[in-house]
């Protein structure tokens, strides 16, 4: 609206419109309409349920009839007693793989016979290691960094009592390490005052291996007890911290995710505090080993897919939808969304409470047990990664809710920014292995889908026109071509969706009428199209010649994928 004539017309139309004030109870009328429509749909669905069950059953039978994946599940990013048995036998392994001469896992101040031998030759500044009481005291002072805890004389079987104001809070199990005549004392674990009945850690057990996160669990005697958990490296660095409420009727559990990889042996402490003065009331400490395996086998893109459930990203088996691996561990107050699979890498967005608090995070399942930060900017919640993982794209909007949207493409040739104009809304992105970008957007300069060639910084005239009365959504590269979902009039879920294949210049090559009746997310890999239908089953599946083949049914997610426990945002 730029000319005086256009401005005057706009003013007159606005003035005329303002004379009309709609009635006040329309929202109730709409809600009634929604209820009536749902009731009609339920009736229709129950009539077709038998037919659907037959189709789904056939799909599942076909999937089950094939060979099962020979690949091992991805590394479990958790620790549990069942996953990694506690090394209870003698000798035990130290973090370097060598053996030690004591039962259990020595974690303070020495961890191996070799270190003990070095100490025997030259105690240096650790001469105090010859005295078990001093070892116990230094453990609480230097490693666990607790105040007001006093270590007492060691019993015959190697336990040193820890007291606070004269009250027993825990006992340190000690042993002499090494084979030299002069052997240092080391701590093996810290037990609650009465053999674990007051406070117990049931997982991890001493010497368990952890990968990316420590999944801790245990029991506590009491009603509403706050159990404080800390994960520290053997050098005393605080790696993760968490508090949980628990009681006699309610065992506690918590996940402590760590990001540091500069440790190989650490200690998990659980403690309760005095309600009176906050001093330590009960204490348990368990040594754990960090799994630093250099590489792991990761299921291929058509064998596993990524998705999000309740703000947590996971890797799922493409034959039965079982979760193979928890990929992301969002801290409290954060939600992880929009996961994208790229080779062995998984990228996702971490949304904080504020629009400006959004991050792009990446984890390489093959090499890194920890996630790394890719970008920390005011992001529009869309993300893309090329299949080979070399290219990544995300969208920035410095004003969060307004202002110019810029898509950042990061790859082997550096970073390039593509402007989508002031007010341009970017709602979906995809990348191919050449670094070309597809974007679904709406902007002042027209177009709803753009193809941006490799190296280009401008939105090309892509010619991705929908048929008359239709709209195109979810563009994705499929080999050398582009696929998108076309929704046609009427836009009320009664018309099947079409998957349209086009050249990158917008030439229509084929179109397939699907069984889908609502807009899915479309993802592609190895010539396959993965999708998710929201009705009637909330299922995840493949589109094969327009036919939906279910991988995972989600009956509880039929009405809304916002329900707890619903898997969504899938990507190959």
């Amino acid at each position, binding site marked *: 609206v730029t000319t005086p004539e256009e401005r005057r017309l706009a003013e007159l139309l606005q003035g005329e419109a303002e004379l009309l004030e709609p009635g006040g109870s329309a929202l109730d009328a709409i809600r009634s309409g929604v209820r009536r429509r749902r009731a009609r749909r339920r009736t229709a669905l129950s009539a077709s349920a038998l037919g659907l069950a037959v189709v789904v059953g056939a799909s599942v039978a076909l999937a089950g009839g094939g060979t099962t994946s020979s690949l091992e599940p991805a590394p479990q990013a958790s620790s549990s007693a069942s996953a990694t048995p506690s090394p209870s036998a003698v000798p035990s392994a130290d973090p370097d793989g060598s053996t030690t001469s004591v039962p259990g896992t020595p974690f303070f101040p020495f961890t191996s016979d070799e270190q003990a031998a070095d100490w025997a030759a030259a105690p240096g500044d650790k001469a105090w290691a010859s005295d078990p009481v001093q070892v116990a005291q230094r453990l609480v002072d230097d490693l666990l960094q607790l105040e007001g805890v006093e270590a007492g004389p060691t019993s015959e079987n190697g336990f040193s009592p820890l007291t606070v104001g004269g009250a027993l809070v825990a006992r340190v199990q000690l042993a002499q390490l090494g084979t030299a005549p002069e052997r240092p004392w080391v701590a093996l674990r810290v037990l609650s005052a009465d053999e674990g009945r007051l406070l117990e850690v049931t997982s991890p057990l001493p010497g368990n291996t952890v990968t990316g996160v420590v999944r801790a669990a245990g029991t506590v005697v009491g009603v509403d007890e706050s159990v404080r958990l800390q994960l520290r490296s053997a050098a005393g660095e605080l790696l993760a911290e968490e508090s949980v409420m628990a009681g006699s009727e309610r065992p506690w559990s918590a996940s402590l995710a760590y990001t540091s990889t500069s440790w190989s042996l650490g200690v998990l402490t659980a403690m309760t505090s005095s309600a009176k003065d906050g001093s330590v009331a009960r204490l348990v400490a368990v040594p754990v080993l960090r799994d630093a395996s250099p590489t792991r086998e990761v299921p291929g893109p058509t064998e596993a897919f990524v998705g999000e459930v309740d703000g947590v990203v996971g890797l799922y088996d493409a034959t039965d939808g079982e979760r193979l691996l928890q990929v992301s561990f969002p801290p409290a107050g954060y939600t992880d969304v929009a996961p994208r699979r790229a080779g062995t890498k998984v990228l996702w967005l971490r949304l904080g409470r504020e629009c400006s608090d959004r991050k792009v995070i990446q984890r390489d399942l093959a090499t890194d047990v920890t996630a790394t930060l890719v970008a920390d900017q005011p992001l529009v919640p869309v993300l893309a990664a090329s299949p080979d993982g070399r290219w990544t794209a995300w969208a920035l909007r410095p004003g969060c809710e307004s202002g110019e949207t810029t898509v950042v493409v990061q790859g082997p040739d550096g970073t390039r920014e593509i402007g989508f104009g002031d007010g341009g809304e970017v709602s979906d992105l995809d990348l191919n292995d050449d670094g070309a970008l597809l974007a679904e957007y*709406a902007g002042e300069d027209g177009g709803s889908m753009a193809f941006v060639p490799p190296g280009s910084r401008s939105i090309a005239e892509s010619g991705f026109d929908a048929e008359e009365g239709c709209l195109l959504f979810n563009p994705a590269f499929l080999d050398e071509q582009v696929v998108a979902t076309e929704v046609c009039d009427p836009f009320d879920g009664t018309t099947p969706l079409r998957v349209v294949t086009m050249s990158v210049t917008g030439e229509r090559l084929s179109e397939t009428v699907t069984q889908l009746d609502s807009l899915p997310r479309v993802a592609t890999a190895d010539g396959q199209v993965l999708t998710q239908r929201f009705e009637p089953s909330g299922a995840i599946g493949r589109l094969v010649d327009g036919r939906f083949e279910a991988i995972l049914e989600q009956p509880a997610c039929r009405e809304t994928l916002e329900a707890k426990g619903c898997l969504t945002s899938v990507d190959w």
Partner: protein
Amino acid sequence: MDSTAAPVATAGALGRGSMADERPLTPDEVLTALYTAHYRGLVRLAAFLLRDRDSAEEVVQDAYVKVHGRWRGVRDLDKGEAYLRQSVVNLCRSRLRHRTVVARHAPAPMPDGASAESGALDSLERTKVVEALAALPLRQREAIVLRYYADLSEAQTAHAMGISPGAVKSHTSRGMAALRETLLEEL
């Protein structure tokens, strides 16, 4: 037209200061947000196309009901607005086709008579423009109303009408020429 919906369909986008700010909205929360932000504007838009206030309200309510079933797939509120607008335009077309076939009755006029505050000349001019608009072919009327009343870009208008941006340009241009001709120098 009102356009105050936040772009991300999360509770946080509605300004709720809780830890669950970034959780996706429930369909009813989306409904309420889209109703609050766009209902009045959409009724006015439909009224321009239908020249009938009651029908306009019915059509917009139908659009909300129909689009509600698809909101779980809508990832942001702006897209929800676009769906609604598209649905309103389509339902208006259906309603007009129905009218043409079933009865050739004169559509009920828009609420007429300017308010006391409005100038008499403005009122007269508006009436002439609205009458001239009503005489335009449907696609031209849609393009003019979406561009100049709803203040949409050519791309957004193209989405709402389900046609290409080039066709929007063409319909708008022809519509403006027709209005100019009808109103002579009124604009």
